[in-house]
């Protein structure tokens, strides 16, 4: 089971995260949490919820980095991160029990909690830190790409997208099928130079990041100063003769 699917199905589902647009509001993180704490991998346990050293299971975490230089040149970048549903994920193949698996049909990487022995090896194998161990339940959990939402026939069709995408106020997250060259995610990746995180792992993440765009500045622009703004008597020549009708 933890061998990767030998024959892949028609779809390769994943996300595109637009770092040029994300304002870092954490909506994706908390909306994910509220959907999933009662969802497929329920609960997303919180430890020390009202004490010191509070921590819990989150499938989506938002970092903030500074990049691109110093001082005014530095760009603040909000960076949401969740499972990238890699094409060749070691987190699946290292699993000794078959609890971790990659779905042949759409490439979603899941954990079958009933089989998980909680050895945490998959979390060691994930370069991205996308695996989340539930210390209380003793099993590994992770982003399901909201598998109980995206296919849920009991929800209106428009709602069948991952919670993080549906809720994103700035529309910095997009969901779709990377095998379809005309899908929004494929198009955005093409047009905006979508890239892989840590390509050197060889895991080939499905989900892509869109880089921050260089800011627009009209180089050297300044307004021509209208000379003779006033006459010697201090009158504003420019507007003296204008006849402007109400």
């Amino acid at each position: 089971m933890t061998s990767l699917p030998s024959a892949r199905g028609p779809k390769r589902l994943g996300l595109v995260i637009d770092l040029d647009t994300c304002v870092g509001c954490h909506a994706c993180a908390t909306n994910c949490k509220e959907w999933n704490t009662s969802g497929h991998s329920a609960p997303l346990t919180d430890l020390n919820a009202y004490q010191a050293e509070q921590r819990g299971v989150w499938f989506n975490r938002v970092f903030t980095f500074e990049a691109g230089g110093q001082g005014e040149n530095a760009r603040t970048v909000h960076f949401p991160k969740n499972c990238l549903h890699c094409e060749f994920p070691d987190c699946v193949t290292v699993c000794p029990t078959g609890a971790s698996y990659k779905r042949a049909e759409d490439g979603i990487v899941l954990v079958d909690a009933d089989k998980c022995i909680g050895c945490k090896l998959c979390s060691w194998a994930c370069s991205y830190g996308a695996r989340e161990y539930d210390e209380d339940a003793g099993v590994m959990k992770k982003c399901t790409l909201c598998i109980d939402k995206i296919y849920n026939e009991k929800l209106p069709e428009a709602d069948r997208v991952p919670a993080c995408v549906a809720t994103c106020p700035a529309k910095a997250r997009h969901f779709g099928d990377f095998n379809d060259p005309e899908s929004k995610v494929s198009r955005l990746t093409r047009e905006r130079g979508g890239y892989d995180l840590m390509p050197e792992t060889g895991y080939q993440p499905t989900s892509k990041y869109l880089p921050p765009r260089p800011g627009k500045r009209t180089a050297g622009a300044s307004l021509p100063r209208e000379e003779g703004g006033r006459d010697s008597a201090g009158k504003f020549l420019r507007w003296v003769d204008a006849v402007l009708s109400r």
Partner: protein
Amino acid sequence: MHPAFSVIFFTTASGAGYGLLALLAIFTLSGLLPATTWLGFVAMAISLGLIGAGLLSSMLHLGHPERFLRALTQWRSSWLAREGVLAIATFVPTGLFGIGWVFLNSTSGMFAWMAALSAVMAAVTVFFTSMIYASLKPIRQWHNGFVPPAYIVLGTMTGALLLVFLARLFGVYSPVFGILGIALLMTGWVLKTAYWRHIDTAPARSTLGTATGLGRLGGDVRLLEMPHTEENFLMREMGYQIARKHASKLRFLVHLLLFAAPLALTTLTFWSAVPPLAAGAASFGAVVLAGLGVATERWLFFAEATHTSMLYYGRTM
């Protein structure tokens, strides 16, 4: 990586156990160890005891130890499953080898085959254990060519020191054991030194620039805010940090306890002036010091290991 006691104990104890097992098998086959009951019983008990305790300890590390049998199913892809399968499978030839030795005082014929099989399987099991770590790409201190030989050599080496001690205890000591021990100690020392040099100098393949892709903006990437202000599971598991100063102290301790002292003690016994009792004490001392040394070595193996996921938390690899 968090240096969990259970895993440190598992890898060091089972490593020594398998090392001892393999040597017992080899030297019974070669006739350097006699097929006597008490020697067999004690030696096998120590070997199997270390292996068993190690395996049990590794189970304590699990969230659901009661489901451990599941861990045997995915041997096609998972080094951990392979290790589990082989560890259990090894008990079959080892059991027969032990029965032959202890109860039938026989290490020949079918039992010789079992001994040989035990030795091979023990070595392969340790190799599989090492591959659990060596296969993990996110951890550069593990994902390198030094790790499997180091596991095999350190396992055999600690096994050899146990063998020397047992042989002294039962009066069946052969200089071959001592020479082997010294050879392994020197090999291990060289390997471990080379390993440290490697992890100290090999450039990290991943940086925060590649991890975020923001290196393309030019300049360094700095962490401004973590996603959570307190430590989460990932940071507790992968974010263990050891100060360089502290690490070099501990490395010195490893050089001393695991290699230099046992080497000196084992070499000492070759000096003819050493009375047998002192030689026995020295070999016991070598076992104890190496035991402490290998635990320290393994603690460092975890503590010095860095995980690429921690790049996101502002750590360097």
